[in-house]
């Protein structure tokens, strides 16, 4: 069945492997994607299902490292989209990819402040102000490693009050007004709507984060997975990504 599936892109066959009689996609597609992709990928999935009424797209959104661990432990996924190349490498080092990963988006850090900016934050140098309540990501997670590079490039010695376990946890604290500023991704700022204001950081160019995706080798629906990847990489997909605050890959 796997062998049939690999060829399914060009050979019309039964519905189990994802291709219906007219080349239309069917069956179930399971996508494992970084939590920051929740809005964009849900939209892409809806688009794909509109064109293929007998296709069902299911998502698992979580931290990239948790997803990579689950895939290596045998979780049944067709496509993996990671928020950083390191977690993609966890999957490719285990030889689980059907083809080389493709970078489809970039994300840069931005300062998120609560609506109205109560702390009067103006730029990255405010992260050295001990009077402000500040959140950054812990160095062990990708956004924390990127934050360290940005601080270094800006020559700022940050004095955070908390080192968050993931980027959304930092954003939540901004939304609740419990911190004056957090360093998060531009896409996170966009997703928070009017609760949160973003302040761009020029030094963030030093730490651009790449998002790779790949179809997995034991995908049960490789044709649909490929179609999903193509849709993400298409002009339409790039527009959706840009609307959500991502930068389409260069």
């Amino acid at each position, binding site marked *: 069945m796997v062998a049939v599936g690999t060829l399914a892109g060009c050979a019309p066959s039964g519905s189990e492997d994802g291709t219906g009689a007219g080349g239309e996609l069917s069956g179930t597609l399971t996508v494992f994607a970084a939590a920051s992709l929740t809005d964009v990928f849900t939209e892409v999935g809806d688009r794909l299902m509109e064109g293929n009424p007998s296709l069902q797209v299911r998502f698992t959104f979580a931290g990239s490292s948790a997803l990579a661990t689950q895939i290596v432990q045998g979780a049944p996924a067709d496509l993996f989209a990671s928020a950083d190349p390191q977690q993609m490498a966890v999957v490719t080092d285990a030889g689980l990819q059907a083809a080389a990963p493709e970078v489809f988006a970039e994300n840069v850090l931005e300062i998120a402040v609560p609506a109205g900016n109560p702390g009067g934050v103006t730029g990255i140098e405010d992260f050295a102000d001990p009077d402000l309540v500040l959140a950054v990501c812990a160095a*062990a997670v990708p956004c924390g490693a990127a934050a360290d590079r940005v601080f270094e490039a800006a020559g700022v010695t940050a004095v955070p009050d908390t080192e*968050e376990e993931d980027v959304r946890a930092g954003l939540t604290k901004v939304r609740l007004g419990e911190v004056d500023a957090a360093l998060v991704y531009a896409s996170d700022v966009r997703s928070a709507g009017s609760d949160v204001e973003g302040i761009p950081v020029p030094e963030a160019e030093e730490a651009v984060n790449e998002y790779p995706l790949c179809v997995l080798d034991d995908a049960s629906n490789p044709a649909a997975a490929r179609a999903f990847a193509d849709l993400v990489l298409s002009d339409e997909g790039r527009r959706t990504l840009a609307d959500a605050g991502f930068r389409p890959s260069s």
Partner: protein
Amino acid sequence: MRRPGTRVPAPLAIPAALAVAFLVLPLAGLLVRAPWSSVVEQLTAPGVGQALRLSLLSATAATAVSLLLGVPLAWVLARSRIRGRSVLRALVTVPLVLPPVVGGVALFLVLGRQGIVGSWLDATFGITIPFTTAAVVIAQTFVAMPFLVVSVEGALRAADARFEDVAATLGADRWTTFRRVTLPMVAPGVAAGAVLCWARALGEFGATITFAGNFPGTTQTMPTAVYLALQSEPEAAVVLSLVLLAVSLGTLLLLRDRWLGRVVP
């Protein structure tokens, strides 16, 4: 030689053995996967001692607060005749079913600097609670106290209330009766509840990292350190988990001998 009465019947022995296997095998998995060659290096890594110390201190403080507030609450639930007691009982066990991360957000909404009580504390006394060691203790108490309350209430219900009635007929008021009769009678239940509460506080992660954040030395506990290590160095996470397990098991065994050993007949 086995006495005939001490043999465990098979319908109990087999499920019990399965339960032991189920509960202990994951621990064995950790022991097998532990990178024994680099244990010393992992243990002396900066922050480990700090996190362990903070975990032990905060869990103990949370247990102390839970005892001070939780034992009286358990008495009210078990012995008083106030109206709406069953609703009250359900309400105080909410933290047991609430996902801890949600508990952390709920604590923000009350005690955060924008919270109902927290904004008043900030404006009046200039006190802000989140991201402090006090916040760690509060988060752990919120999650762990119900374990103590449920245990102590159970012990109170099982205890023979006639001793209290006798004390009352002999002229003791309810407070004296509580202190001199009730409390000694349910001491094993209180001790067991305190142990449960302490263990739950020690392992607390979700509410703590949400409400108190994560900063080495002030708010980073062992479970937070383990979670973060898991993101980058899974082997270090295994070692840290084993340290937490060894210390907590050691403490509980010691307490069992020294403290529970005396009160349990």
